[in-house]
């Protein structure tokens, strides 16, 4: 009966399923749910981008591209990264187009990890970081960020986690789930730490287009950091292209070569149609990005103030589209809070502990929903809190 189980990899068997799954199952069967649980933009990809993909199909562009991606796309990415984030990468051999930022992260980790290597992962974080380190044969070492520092990781805490096996550090700014943006001094402290211990920094910058208060600073733009940074970005969030599964990774030549080996064997290339769409997004999509960013900023202002007013203490998230309020004042755990809110008021949020133990006591609310939905959610949450 249990025979098949013996065929499964120990590593995979020991992986914990994502805590988000449970809430998906619970919410998916309900009618009339206002969902703040969605980790993607509420915008549909702009029509000009969709139209470019349709055209590419009409023209019969359905074959493989170069392993690293269409050269014209890589050239656009190179120019875009330079003008937007002031980092220089060669289209020729330092940029790889991937199947979402997730695959970029996967090949980056697999390219640098030998069995037993440790990678520091800062939590609360996106659910797949630690599992991907494990799957690559490494050991994730968790360092927590906390609310007292607006969820900015502290160099002193990083120091405590370093061993002689530490190879890299994985950070994400703006952060999912906290919305925290690392500022110049935070990045400098992390960069100094990485240099001191000769570590690589895997910098997940997928939300870089969505910052609301200050210009974005890329880790790779800091002095001396380009050579030790693997920069991950993509089209999902800033360009509202999640379903296209298109990301990219920028790294110095030697690291890029190694990642390309994995990519060519495991993936061949990213979907061709999506690559043509991305070319259009980079050539003509900037106005759409600005419009979406303005819209998120206004909704953030509305939603975070509303949370604080109803008594859920929330720091101002500088980017992404998540608010990460504390629910400690209610005396409920984050799972209890999320479950009762869903059952009693049909508002779906994600409990903070799904993003690491340090997320306990918080919930992640995505404000990438229409104002009408947010207003309804605020009304229901207020009612829920008054009843508690």
């Amino acid at each position, binding site marked *: 009966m249990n025979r098949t189980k013996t065929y499964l990899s120990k590593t995979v068997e020991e992986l914990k399923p994502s805590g*988000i799954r449970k809430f998906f199952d619970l919410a998916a069967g309900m009618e009339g749910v206002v969902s703040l649980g969605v*980790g993607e933009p509420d915008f549909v990809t702009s029509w000009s981008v969709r139209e470019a993909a349709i055209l590419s199909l009409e023209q019969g562009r359905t074959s493989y591209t170069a392993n690293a991606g269409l050269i014209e796309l890589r050239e656009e990415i190179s120019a875009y990264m330079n003008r937007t984030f002031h980092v220089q990468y060669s289209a020729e051999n330092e940029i790889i187009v991937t199947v979402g930022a997730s695959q970029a992260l996967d090949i980056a980790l697999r390219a640098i990890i030998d069995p037993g290597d440790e990678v520091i992962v800062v939590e609360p974080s996106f659910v797949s970081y630690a599992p991907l380190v494990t799957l690559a044969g490494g050991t994730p070492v968790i360092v927590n960020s906390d609310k007292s520092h607006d969820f900015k990781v502290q160099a002193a805490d990083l120091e405590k986690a370093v061993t002689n096996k530490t190879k890299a550090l994985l950070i994400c700014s703006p952060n999912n789930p906290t919305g925290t943006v690392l500022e110049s001094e935070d990045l400098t402290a992390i960069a100094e730490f990485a240099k001191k211990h000769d570590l690589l920094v895997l910098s997940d910058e997928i939300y870089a287009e969505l910052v609301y208060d200050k210009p974005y600073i890329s880790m790779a733009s800091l002095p001396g950091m380009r050579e030790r940074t693997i920069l991950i970005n993509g089209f999902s969030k800033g360009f509202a292209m999640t379903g296209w599964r298109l990301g990219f990774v920028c790294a110095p030549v030697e690291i890029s070569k190694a990642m390309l080996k994995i990519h060519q064997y495991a993936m061949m290339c990213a979907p061709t149609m999506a690559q043509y769409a991305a070319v259009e997004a980079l050539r003509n999509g900037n106005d759409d990005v600005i419009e979406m960013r303005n819209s998120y900023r206004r909704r953030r202002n509305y939603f975070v103030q509303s949370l604080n007013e109803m008594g859920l203490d929330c720091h101002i998230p500088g980017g992404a589209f998540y608010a990460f309020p504390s629910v400690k004042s209610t005396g409920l755990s984050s799972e209890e809070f999320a479950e009762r809110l869903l059952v009693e008021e049909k508002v779906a949020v994600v409990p903070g502990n799904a993003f690491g133990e340090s997320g306990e006591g918080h919930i992640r609310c995505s404000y990438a929903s229409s104002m009408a939905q947010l207003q309804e959610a605020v009304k229901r949450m207020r009612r829920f809190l008054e009843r508690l």
Partner: protein
Amino acid sequence: MTLSEKELEIVEILEKDARIPTADLAKMVNLSVEETEALMKSLEERNIIVQYTALVDWAKIDGHQGVTAMIEVKVTPKRGVGFDEVAERIYRFKEVKSLYLMSGTYDLAVTIEGKTMNEIAKFVAEKLSTLDSVVSTTTHFIMKKYKHDGTIFDQTDGDKRIVVSP
């Protein structure tokens, strides 16, 4: 007139949703309700916010009689007042819903609403073409409205996202 950043934000938000509660609008632009109300009042007084209206899809209403026509009008501008004088003569008619001065092969683009095609034909024949400065008119009747002022009438793009995702 130069607007402050906050005023511009308020205008942009209200242009899309004029019915948003002021308390919510205030939060969106990070101001107090009083400050927001004061800015709105000032925008109204300066006639920058001219009116708050609803966009109605009359075609959905059974029994509604209505025809819209776009009329290209060629006119002779007058010394000293240019196009403004004849434009004013035309836009004062309540049948005229919009009027723009155009570049290109004609001068004024006039939108007219009436109950029937006959009513509009009568207006053009009796009121519009008889004006001294009007040289010629070309009338186009609108058959179906797909999109108006940036809003698609039959928006079918609902939220297709899965309810919870990482």
